[in-house]
């Protein structure tokens, strides 16, 4: 068992006290994931002044307001596009994009896959709660079939997105998914993601008892956590299961861990090449 700092220590070191309490509802999983992320930063000994948090719109996107770092709270779905400008302008900064599933995968789906394609050096911490919590519980593109939302009062009939799977196909350097229940794996994955070059993603199944759970007969966070335990399947096990059995399940684990050069490194080389081609440099 590794030594873990108390939550109070983490809070005092990294949160803006004047912004507390947070806007999150009781039982919301965002606080847990935030804690995982801060612990990962702390364990790695990263410099607080060299990290910028970027976010879009939604409950999870309010996180950069609560942490004591440079933070850019942007428009809906566009966080990764804003991040591209920050990173390329000042490559010394580490970028953490804290996003929700609606933000990253619905309206922001295109920026998501193109940031991955470019291998933008950014770590995405993605809160997947199957719903638009802030606007009142509308169905999200990640919602499994049959789940209810205020705009799917008769149950979702569309197929869901597998965000992690999409990120792997688009070419991300590191992709992992856990539920907030898997906190140790989660922290370790974030540490790994923060240590790597290029695009890294850690997705968390995270409870939203108020906007999502209540409408799906899981009024409390523990009920949602138990449900996650039921529907998640570790990657090793999933590999041996036929597609029919995996229907309605969510696979968790590490899906990709590779070392393609990141956009910053590519652009540095590009500048050199340009000067060489123009005869400005040998």
């Amino acid at each position, binding site marked *: 068992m590794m030594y873990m700092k108390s939550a109070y220590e983490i809070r005092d070191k990294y949160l803006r006290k004047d912004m507390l309490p947070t806007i999150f509802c009781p039982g919301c999983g965002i606080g847990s994931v935030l804690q995982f992320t801060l612990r990962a930063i702390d364990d790695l000994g990263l410099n607080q002044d060299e990290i910028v948090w970027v976010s879009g719109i939604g409950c999870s996107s309010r996180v950069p307001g609560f942490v004591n770092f440079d933070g850019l709270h942007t428009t809906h779905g566009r966080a990764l596009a804003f991040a591209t400008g920050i990173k390329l302008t000042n490559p010394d900064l580490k970028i953490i994009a804290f996003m929700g599933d609606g933000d990253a995968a619905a309206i922001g789906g295109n920026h998501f896959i193109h940031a991955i394609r470019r291998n933008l050096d950014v770590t995405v911490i993605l809160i997947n709660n199957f719903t638009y919590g802030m606007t009142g519980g509308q169905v999200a593109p990640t919602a499994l079939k049959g789940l209810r939302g205020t705009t799917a009062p008769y149950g979702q009939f569309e197929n869901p997105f597998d965000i992690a799977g999409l990120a792997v196909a688009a070419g991300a350097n590191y992709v992992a998914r856990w539920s907030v229940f898997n906190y140790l794996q989660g922290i370790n994955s974030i540490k790994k993601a923060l240590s790597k070059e290029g695009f890294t993603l850690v997705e968390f199944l995270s409870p939203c008892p108020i906007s999502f759970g209540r409408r799906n007969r899981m009024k409390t966070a523990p009920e949602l956590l138990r449900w996650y335990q039921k529907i998640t399947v570790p990657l090793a096990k999933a590999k041996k299961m036929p597609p029919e059995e995996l229907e309605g399940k969510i696979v968790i684990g590490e899906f990709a861990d590779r070392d393609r050069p990141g956009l910053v490194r590519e652009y540095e080389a590009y500048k050199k090449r340009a*000067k060489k081609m123009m005869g400005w440099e040998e």
Partner: protein
Amino acid sequence: MRYPFPVGKSDFIQGDEAIARAAILAGCRFYAGYPITPASEIFEAMALYMPLVDGVSIQMEDEIASIAAIIGASWAGAKAMTATSGPGFSLMMENLGYAIMTETPIVVVDVQRGGPSTGQPTLAAQGDIMQAIWGTHGDHMLIVLSPSTVQEAFDFTIRAFNLAEKYRTPVVLLTDAEIAHMRERVYIPSPEEIELVERKLPASEEEAKLPFGDPHGDGVPPMPIFGRGYRTYVTGLTHDERGRPRTVDAEVHEKLITRIFRKILDHKDEIISYEEFMLDDADVAIVSTGIVSRSAIRAVKILRERGVKAGMVKINTIWPFDFDYIEQLAERVGKIYVPEMNLGQLYHLVKEGANGKAEVELIAKIGGEVHTPMEIVERVVG
């Protein structure tokens, strides 16, 4: 500093190229864009020059991402620009509002083409004047400039950067397909000849803590850019002086929005620019902007030859608009003509300004061709 084009001498170049060179000389080191006719040549020139001056030129997946990226770059400390045309400009509206709200200095070039919708992609128009002013939602204030020659395209681009930096605001450079693609002789000054303005940075920890305050009383807060240990929080939500979201407090909202208006309107005299020609004894005035002004000048000369006491005003700053000046003008002349390449946009502003003190008549032309001087003359002499 070495430049990838000759400086301190004249060159024969397109408007798009002039804008790109001006941006480089103004210190722009981040460009994000997306291909669109007739603005693509700006991007192509930036792609060629930027890596050579250690800047960034990146092609994003769409126009929404392009303006997002330059806002991010600006907060990381770079002077940043994007260029587009009507359809792309429409897509940028949400994030243009974000730049206004977060007081992010950026320059957005809109090379106007025939619209609405995809319309006439290769032909010039002046149909986005009102969009540049009103296109994003909510109460907002920004600066819009409009050049009429390739030389002005160059000069106004530098001015756009200076105004953006000085007032911590997005500036729209509204040009058109005609100027963008026209080649003219342009004097490209050397860096020593160019006066550049850099954004105010916080002079103390105290100032850095109020990224949306008004420590100097001019309405323009210093900008604590990222990575300097200020731990700035920036949001498009209504925020207090420290940048904290305060979305249900009416007073905070009013204070913020009125300051964003004030910081520009209080400096109207410095921002607003127009040029008068032969107006001293005129009883007919032509008010125009951009490419049409060139035909208007010629029209004034022809009218004078014919004995009509005509004069004209070329509007360089479209927004904020000098309503008061137009009212004074209306008092001096009996009639104002507004030739423009749309069905009436600048006309509305002039009419509001004239305040009933002179008759205002629109000379509209659409379809992609600039008014000929004679078309204006004929309308004036009836």
